[in-house]
């Protein structure tokens, strides 16, 4: 990527390049943040204090729906950036709206899942296991919620200003954030749900 003519719009200005690099550094910090939550979970997962454990409360069907919603939303976020790079504003808008709807669907499922946990007698105060579980899942869910608001505001900018060097760079950064949330979910899916469920 040395010649400017082949560089995507979001990398054109030095400022944009620095913003994208800075966001990668932020994602590095996010990896470390989530690693501390995973570490707490792994240390505490067997400390159920007489309350329910993972195999009692996890429901495979719900988890699979959540996983596929988030996985598909990561795919459509990629298609949105693909449209953006083809200077296709409508494609960018439509794929982004689909991404946000899938994200909202994921949140709906996760909130229902939390209500199910609480119904089964697993509140955040029940045990070390539930405290670590709700903190890990809740931090991820809070990130998804924040992403939905953030990207909604970016949509307004795209409608008002179109695809410019600045809006393209902002959108690209938001897409990195969204893909990152799917990466975190892959590890939650594997090491919390699949690991915790009884065969």
């Amino acid at each position, binding site marked *: 990527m040395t010649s400017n003519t082949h560089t*995507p719009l979001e990398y054109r200005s030095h400022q944009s390049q620095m913003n994208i690099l800075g966001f990668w550094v932020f994602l590095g910090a996010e990896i470390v943040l989530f690693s501390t939550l995973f570490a707490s979970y792994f240390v505490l997962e067997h400390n159920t204090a007489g309350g329910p454990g993972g195999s009692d409360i996890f429901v495979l069907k719900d988890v699979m729906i959540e996983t596929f919603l988030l*996985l598909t939303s990561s795919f459509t976020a990629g298609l949105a950036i693909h449209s953006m790079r083809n200077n296709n504003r409508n494609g960018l808008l439509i794929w982004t709206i689909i991404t946000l709807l899938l994200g909202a669907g994921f949140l709906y499922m996760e909130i229902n899942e939390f209500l199910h946990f609480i119904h089964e007698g697993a509140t955040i105060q029940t045990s070390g296991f539930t405290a670590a579980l709700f903190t890990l899942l809740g931090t991820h869910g809070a990130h998804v919620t924040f992403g939905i608001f953030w990207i909604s505001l970016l949509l307004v900018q795209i409608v008002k200003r179109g695809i410019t060097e600045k809006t393209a760079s902002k959108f690209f950064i938001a897409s990195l954030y969204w893909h990152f949330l799917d990466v975190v979910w*892959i590890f939650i899916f594997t090491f919390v749900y699949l690991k915790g469920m009884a065969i």
Partner: protein
Amino acid sequence: MSTHKSSFPWNHLVGFILSIALTLLAVFIKFKTDFSDTVILWTIGTLAIFQALIQLFMFMHVTEGNEGKINVINIIYSVFLALVIVFGSIWVLTTGHAAH
């Protein structure tokens, strides 16, 4: 990229299909095979890492841009820190050090 229109996002489609396949494979290994818990955990853990790499390279284009190398070094360093935190915490807090 922006000077010529790339018609179809094959990269993304392949990444998506691989991600679904890896997810279903992990579920299959967990629920439909007779391996020991340890083997299952290591296998589905490896599948998760593959899927994360697919996201990083096929969706996030981690090597892209003038700072591609810095990005990769940054991510490797962060993953190193994450592994130290996770395995270090498990080691220190489950081997009885806390009892002394």
